[in-house]
């Protein structure tokens, strides 16, 4: 109390003086705000956030979508916990779903059916929870690749990239632990895959599996354990990481796309209050509305069709939710390689896919550090890269996505085969070869496309927009009329960084020299001020000649009539 007493008058006077200056926010705050402020002294805090500037761009909003779907997950999940019973005790189903009446099912399965068919709004909440989970992961992926392709992970945001990466992994864990809970055949098959993957780990695998399942698979413990993981551990970890993610976002300030007046030292945009509070608040309800609409109209995970879990059946078309598909794809592609050593089977057909998954994730997590090591760039970046200005990064990102997509498609090979009337064997071979060939092709094609776009934009800066109007001079020479870019548009095209390969020696290792060569060997040099001056002078000269002939009237003959 002794410390708060002297600060109170200053806080009050500070808010009073700014109110006198007539800030929009403070006028609102004055109505009862002083009363509250004298008790919690939050004015400075509110003022700080109200004046926080955010740049405006549609691609910046996918993180928000993820956040909002998480809120929807918490709300709908809370509803579900009131009815779901996480127990594997066997009961006889006596609910209203006729085709399963009399079946021996677990309490978890029974309560899921009860929730779906007998609790009012239960099925809607289940579907909202599941659709929100799919949207949560979609939004995380889109957000992550927006950040990747625009270079928003560069200093000072490397750690926040890692936080986001961890959120993506936790999202997968949350999703997996969640769809395993109803104890239906499909989710049990998924758990069996996890059990198999664990048991493939040499030496400790069997112990790990026994530890997780409380004995031999499936045991009687896994559902209660997953329940605790799903509703307590993982959401708590996600909440904590979201908090860190957002605190770091506030500390770093938001990145912005290049534009006139935008630098690494400012943020150009609108204040949080009132613009973004309205936009973000409204956006939450839009996301909520979309998820509610989809959940009310579209079925998801009808566990009564899959039936109660029984280790013997595996239905055709058994796949995990989309964000886990890629982990199934590797298992479907790998040939059945294994060998025996000292009487122990080493299942390469499990270990190799797991190593590949680990490598893919590690590449993603470590990319900011790899790139900063290559470029040696230690500056802070708040202005984003346009993806075509970083051809190798963009190419690597597209190659990564192509591997991910091939793995996901490989996990759906049976459905593709059935629906497109293709042989599943041919598809498997196509993906087996494709996973080596397609990423390389995608990298190369993407990189060349980026370089072409750079070349085209370089040309645009130097020569302006071609108007398709041609003037013939008296000596027969043809000149096309070019419309010069305005300064604002030109700035976006000339502001980017230029990196060159390093040569080994002088403290540069040969590895780093090779890496810089890989990244920057093929480069289109940005327009230099000298080049721009020369081009402008040339354009001015041409314009002079054209104007002398046309008198500044650029209308074509057919327009004149």
């Amino acid at each position: 109390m002794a410390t708060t007493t002297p600060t109170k008058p200053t806080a009050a006077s500070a808010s009073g003086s700014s109110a006198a200056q007539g800030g929009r926010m403070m006028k609102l705050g004055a109505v009862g705000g002083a009363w509250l402020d004298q008790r919690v002294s939050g004015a400075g805090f509110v003022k700080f956030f109200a004046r926080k500037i955010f740049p405006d761009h549609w691609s910046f909003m996918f993180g928000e979508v993820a956040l909002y779907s998480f809120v929807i997950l918490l709300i709908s999940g809370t509803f579900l916990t009131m009815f779901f019973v996480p127990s594997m005790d066997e009961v006889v189903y006596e609910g209203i779903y006729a085709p399963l009446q009399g079946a021996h099912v677990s309490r978890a399965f029974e309560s899921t059916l009860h929730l779906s068919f007998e609790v009012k709004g239960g099925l809607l909440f289940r579907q909202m929870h599941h659709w929100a989970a799919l949207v949560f992961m979609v939004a995380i992926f889109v957000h992550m690749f927006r950040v990747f392709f625009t270079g928003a992970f560069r200093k000072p945001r490397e750690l926040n990239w890692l936080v986001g990466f961890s959120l993506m992994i936790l999202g997968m864990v949350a999703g997996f632990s969640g769809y395993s809970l109803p104890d239906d055949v499909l989710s049990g098959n998924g758990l069996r895959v996890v059990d198999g993957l664990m048991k493939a780990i040499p030496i400790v695998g069997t112990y790990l599996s026994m530890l997780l399942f409380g004995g031999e698979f499936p045991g009687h413990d896994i559902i209660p354990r997953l329940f605790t993981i799903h509703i307590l551990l993982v959401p708590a970890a996600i909440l904590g990481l979201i908090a860190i993610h957002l605190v770091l976002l506030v500390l770093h300030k938001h990145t912005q796309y290049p534009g006139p007046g935008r630098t690494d030292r400012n943020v150009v945009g609108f204040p949080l209050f009132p613009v973004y509070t309205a936009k973000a608040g409204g956006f939450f309800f839009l996301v909520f509305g979309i998820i509610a609409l989809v959940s009310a109209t579209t079925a998801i995970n009808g566990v009564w069709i899959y039936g109660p879990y029984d280790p013997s059946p595996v239905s055709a078309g058994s796949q995990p939710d989309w964000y886990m598909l890629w982990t199934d794809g590797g298992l479907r592609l790998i040939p059945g390689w294994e060998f025996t050593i000292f009487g122990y089977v080493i299942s390469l057909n499990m270990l190799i896919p797991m190593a590949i998954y680990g490598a893919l994730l590690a590449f993603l997590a470590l990319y900011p550090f790899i790139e900063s090591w290559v470029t040696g760039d230690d500056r802070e970046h708040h202005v984003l890269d346009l993806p075509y200005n970083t051809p190798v990064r963009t190419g690597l990102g597209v190659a990564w996505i192509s591997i991910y997509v091939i793995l996901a498609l490989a996990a759906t090979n049976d459905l593709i085969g059935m629906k497109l009337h293709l042989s599943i064997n041919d598809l498997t071979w196509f993906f087996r070869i494709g996973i080596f060939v397609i990423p390389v092709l995608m990298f190369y094609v993407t990189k060349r496309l980026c370089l072409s776009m750079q070349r085209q934009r370089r040309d645009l800066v130097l020569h302006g927009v071609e108007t398709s109007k041609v003037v013939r001079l008296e000596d027969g020479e043809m000149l096309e009329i070019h419309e010069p870019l305005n300064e604002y548009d030109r700035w976006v095209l000339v502001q980017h960084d230029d990196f060159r390969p390093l040569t080994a020696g002088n403290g540069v290792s040969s590895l780093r020299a090779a890496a810089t060569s890989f990244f920057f060997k093929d480069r289109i040099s940005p327009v230099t001020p000298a080049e721009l001056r020369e081009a402008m002078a040339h354009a001015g000269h041409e314009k002079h000649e054209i104007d002398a002939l046309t008198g500044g009237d650029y209308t074509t003959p057919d327009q004149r009539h």
Partner: protein
Amino acid sequence: MKALAARRHHPMAFVVILLLALLATGGLYAALQPRSAQAESYSQDDVAAGEALFLANCATCHGTTGAGEVDAEGNATGPSLVGVGAAAVDFQVGTGRMPMQMSGPQAARKAPQMNEEQTRQLAAYVASLGPGPSVPDESTLDLANADLENGGNIFRINCAMCHNAAGAGGALTRGKYAPALGGVESTHIYEAMETGPQNMPVFNDDNLSPEDKRDVVAYLKALEENGSPGGISLGSLGPVTEGLYAWTIVLALLVGCTVWLGAKAK
């Protein structure tokens, strides 16, 4: 006994024992083999009309006697139809799979080429080639007293691995597939179990009793009747179509909102 023992090394003893063993096996098989009653009786006219139809439409592949046909390279163009029974004909011809439209990994369902009468006549002819399962009668397919839970259990354990838990169909090797079961007539589902068409295993009355088969049919019909309580079923193909839906339609809606909110005020 002694005389018999003394001759046990006779060169012909092996042949005699072999003959006895064959007789025993054959006799036991003949006595115990699963034989479904020929419920429907066909007239001689049916058989004659069926034979005419058979010669005109089926003999190219199955041979003029229905014993199958082999091409110049020794590959079977059509299997022998001796003993497949009327049920097989009713299924294959009744669902339009036979006569086959074109060669391929398997005969696809199409609009039936034969009408009901012609199908019956063909069935009569094929049934006359050798005893086999007959077309199930109405009492067999009385679904009113069926045990749905039993049918569902059998379906999930024995059928879903190819046909999908929702009966939405599934892929097999080399372009073959288990077809979707929605909208298939009860009789045809029953006959498919009994005769094992194409790549399907045979579930004869000894390993799946007529009541069990009826329960499976009833379960499939109940699934169809229940529809999709949660809304659009997306083909009942599970998480893949759900994920695709999230990445296309739901994401498009969300991007629409972001573009709207991100647009500068005019």
